């Protein structure tokens, strides 16, 4: 561990002031399961930590006609254990359930997982595929940003200095919709995704009316696969169509090679997992 100054603001305004006022090396602490690791592994030089856990009203989960909303301090564990989340958003639930360990999920916040902006984050593909939005607070007024537009690169987002993400909104699942998230890793737990594929489908009368595919760990950010989505949309999702969409998704990803996998293998898995995820989502829609 390295030494740093610790701050515990009581309001978002105070937190924002600290983040902009304390200068370089000032970071916001929510769950801390990534940040504390980065400090300890010397990946990030931190002079000040601004812990937002004492700020009220950031830990609510609501689920109603507007869909799902959860605040910046809601842990992955809390959402994972929410019975309605598992039922209505099995894709998000699968992502939550494969994030780190139970112990990590009891500390890690979902908003933190998102703001960390890792292309392999497990909660991002399902939320992107479901059309989620992120809400922010800023001194001159907050905003709502489509999650698909939030990321600008690995570890980078559109958040401005002093702007703080406060929560996530996920639209309610439409009738006849189905969703799935499949993560590929070498082990069954404690894995960072080699590839993660989330698919959300809407269907009517046996026809796909909308499809969103989000690909994790195969680009600088979580990617959409618009070409593959277009192949599915309007179709009856026959096996040949699904296979064609899966092949198209392989063309739309931009994976790299690293110690976890080669780029070619990642691309192959995008094909396999897209096909499997579409099939699962379709079963859920039925």
């Amino acid at each position, binding site marked *: *561990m390295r*030494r740093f100054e*610790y701050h515990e603001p009581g309001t978002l305004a105070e937190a924002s002031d600290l983040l902009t006022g304390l200068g370089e090396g000032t970071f916001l602490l929510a769950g*801390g399961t990534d940040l*504390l*690791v980065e400090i300890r592994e010397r990946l990030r030089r931190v002079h000040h*930590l601004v812990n937002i856990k004492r700020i009220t009203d950031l830990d609510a989960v609501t689920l109603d006609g507007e869909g799902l909303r959860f605040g910046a301090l809601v842990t992955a564990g809390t959402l994972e254990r929410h019975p309605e989340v598992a039922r209505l958003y099995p894709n998000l639930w699968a992502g939550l359930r494969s994030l780190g360990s*139970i112990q990590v999920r009891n500390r890690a916040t979902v908003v933190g997982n998102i703001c960390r902006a890792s292309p392999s984050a497990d909660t991002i593909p399902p939320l992107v595929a479901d059309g989620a939005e992120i809400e922010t607070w800023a001194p001159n007024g907050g905003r709502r940003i489509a999650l698909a537009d939030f990321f600008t690169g690995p570890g980078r987002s559109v958040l401005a200095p002093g702007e703080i993400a406060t929560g996530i909104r996920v639209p309610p699942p439409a009738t006849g919709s189905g969703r799935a998230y499949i993560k590929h890793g070498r082990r069954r737990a404690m894995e960072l995704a080699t590839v993660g594929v989330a698919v959300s489908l809407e269907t009517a009368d046996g026809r796909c009316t909308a499809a969103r595919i989000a690909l994790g760990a195969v680009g600088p950010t979580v990617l959409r696969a618009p070409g593959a989505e277009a192949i599915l949309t309007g179709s009856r999702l026959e096996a040949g169509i699904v296979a064609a969409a899966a092949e198209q998704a392989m063309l739309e990803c931009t994976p790299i090679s690293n110690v976890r996998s080669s780029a070619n293998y990642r691309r192959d898995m995008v094909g396999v997992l897209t096909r499997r995820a579409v099939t699962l989502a379709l079963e859920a829609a039925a």
Partner: protein
Amino acid sequence: MKTLVTLTVNGEERSLAVEGYRSLLDTLREEAGLTGTKKGCDVGDCGACTVIVDGEPVNACLMLAVEAAGRDVRTVEGMQAGPDALHPLQEAFMEHGASQCGFCTPGILLMAQSLLERNPDPSDEEIRFGLSGNICRCTGYTKIFDAIRTAARRMAAPPADASGLEAAE
């Protein structure tokens, strides 16, 4: 600059002076004298430092000590009901050979205790899932699964005077 942090550890209120950057793990081990909680990786990957905070298992290495202020922390040292009364999980771990080098054992015991508190009759798959954040490199887990099943069975049995039962047999 040190802050005085007051928390409950194994039912006892403790006030500990800590630096803001110190983890709960280092604080328990070095300031509270509770070395049963182990440091296997210090980055949340191994589960050896698992403790129960306000009823939820967490990695003590991934929590700052200042964040534990006002909270209830349970460690392996608090598992026993009394000096000579082992927790059924502790008994079962001894009987089944579920502990070899023992370095992962405190974390696994607490994780198992937390699992059984939520789910007194877990399936094999639920036990495996419950331990997925705890690395054991010695046992292959088989004996650990056996021990947890045994403890769950004993804890579920209606309370009875054990000596009386033996006498009846």
